[in-house]
């Protein structure tokens, strides 16, 4: 009896690891766009980490006249303060990504906890938590973020908290639904019959099953968080001492880059935000698709009668 207990978790861990590896392999084969997204995102993260080594100038170095043309000043020209736009982009990546990742972490912690508690315990816990989630879901995020950020005052940690505290609802719902179905599976019941506690069941049996969806959701949330940071920065609610992509757009707008025709001050940061959002969307939706088998079959398609199992 006791040997069976010892060996069971090991077996589960090994198969789920192997399953993960095959899933990743399949993803790479079927969804090249997701792989491209992952590579691009990885490169940008590396650039942000090694900003001090990569960036040609500092963010306060004035190296020429305001809005110096790209032709005169290396690749991307200068912004309204005569600072190198390329360096700003690289340094700005740091803040934008920190906000994106940290806010997502906050959202995942709240959403994951709420989802697991609601799905696992069910009953009145479920009802109360899901009611709260529903209200949060019904109240529009961005206006609420703006209001809270305006009242709290602009700072990096406030922005992260505000975004994270309002982005957890969809995660909570997804996790709850998944936990609810996993909870009823035979092996979970068996583990319980063998005397496993709630914490063990959740971390050992439920969480690994929920993980892939949670990861997909995380990646999609990062995109939303970065968008939200850009939006808050545009309304003047970002940390005034930190430069992010959103802040660059805001600065360029305020200093009339549009009427000046200084496209180089305003196009690059937007493109960067778009690239990161696009990369996250590609990765996240490819993962979601591969987890949703219903999309793999199409009875009516231009090519071939039945597409079969390819994604």
């Amino acid at each position, binding site marked *: 009896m006791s040997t069976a207990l010892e060996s069971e978790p090991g077996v589960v861990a090994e198969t789920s690891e192997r399953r993960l590896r095959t899933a990743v392999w399949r993803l790479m084969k079927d969804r090249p766009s997701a792989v491209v997204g992952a590579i691009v995102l990885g490169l940008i993260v590396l650039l942000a980490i090694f900003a001090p080594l990569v960036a040609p100038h500092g963010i306060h170095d004035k190296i020429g006249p305001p809005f110096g043309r790209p032709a005169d000043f290396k690749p991307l020209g200068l912004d309204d303060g005569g600072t190198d736009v390329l360096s700003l982009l690289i340094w700005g990546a740091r803040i934008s990504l920190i906000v994106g990742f940290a806010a997502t972490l906050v959202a995942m912690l709240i959403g994951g906890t709420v989802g697991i508690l609601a799905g696992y315990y069910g009953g009145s816990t479920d009802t109360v938590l899901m009611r709260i989630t529903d209200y949060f879901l019904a109240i529009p995020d961005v206006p609420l973020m703006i*209001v809270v950020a305006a009242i709290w005052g602009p700072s990096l940690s406030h922005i992260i908290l505000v975004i994270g505290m309002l982005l957890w609802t969809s995660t909570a719902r997804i996790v709850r639904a998944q936990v609810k179905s996993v909870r009823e599976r035979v092996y979970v019941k068996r583990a319980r019959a063998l005397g496993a506690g709630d914490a063990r069941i959740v971390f050992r049996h439920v969480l690994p099953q929920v993980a892939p969806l949670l990861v997909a959701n995380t990646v999609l949330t990062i995109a939303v968080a970065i968008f939200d940071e850009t939006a808050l920065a545009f309304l003047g609610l970002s940390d005034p001492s930190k430069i992010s992509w959103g802040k660059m757009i805001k600065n360029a707008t305020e200093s009339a880059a549009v009427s000046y025709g200084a496209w180089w001050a305003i196009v690059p940061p937007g493109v960067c935000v778009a690239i990161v959002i696009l990369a996250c969307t590609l990765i996240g939706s490819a993962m979601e698709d591969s987890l949703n088998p219903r999309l793999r079959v199409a009875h009516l398609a231009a090519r071939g009668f039945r597409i079969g199992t390819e994604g």
Partner: protein
Amino acid sequence: MRGADYIIKRTAFALITVFVAITLNFVLFRALPGDTIANLSKVPGATPQLRAELTEEFGLDQSKWQQYWIYLGQLAHLNLGVSFSSTEPVTSEVGRAVVNTVPMVLLGTVFSVVFGTITGVLAAWKRRTLLDHGSVSLALIFYSLPTHWLGLMLLLLTAGILPRGGRTDEFLFNPTFTEHMIDIGKHMLLPSLTLGLVLYGQYTLVTRSAMLETLGEDFILTARAKGMRDRTIVRRHAFRNAMLPIITLVALSFGYIVAGSILIETVFSWPGVGLLVSRSVQRRDWPVLQGAFLVLTISVVFFNYVADLLYFKLDPRITT
């Protein structure tokens, strides 16, 4: 009657959500510590008389709990205090802004729903063709662009052709009615187009995946087996079923529309609720921000409610 329960439940939920929003509004602005935010009477440059009146009206010298009840009572009379920057009643400022926002948002939404649905259906139908890949890529790109940045790009591209912002040309001398309308239309074109393009991407993707999901159902296979023409299957069987998720998602995207309109109106200085939000944030004009937030929240809740009812009407399978 079928689903009276459902309607009652949804109505109750919508009403409670509005109540939660109203309470949240009070808690955020008035009950949190910090006197400048909490005190509605601290209108900069106001006469002592106005201050005394506001203190009296909102019971600002009483306990928070009593203030909450007075707040609810005043709200029932549509009284939200006066603007810090113009000392005008908040309600009339917000009211005027709503009138400007609605046509702009409506034009953009209609544009995106029509084009988004058409491309979405075509992309799903012609799956894995150039058309599909092309429209999905385009939709993804529009979906990824930051809203206000797209607006700025359109401004850069149309510099000198279309007006840069505002709602009317102030130098247009004594315009006739048609001239006036054309003028407003010209000013509205870019904001609406920005909103339309941003939403277009989303609606295309949603429609496409809803259609793909429906096309995988067995009744499509049956219809094909019966020898029905592709076009009939798409129109009669697939699209009608795919409409359900599309409608919900269009209504759910109303929160997204609201967020977009805040950014877009700020870019184009279109004098709507969105611009009111960003101006009142910059000026720390708390009463106006409060009013605008309430209007935006209630309208989002309302549209979600409408979507629920529509869903119910369209899907006979819902009974509870």
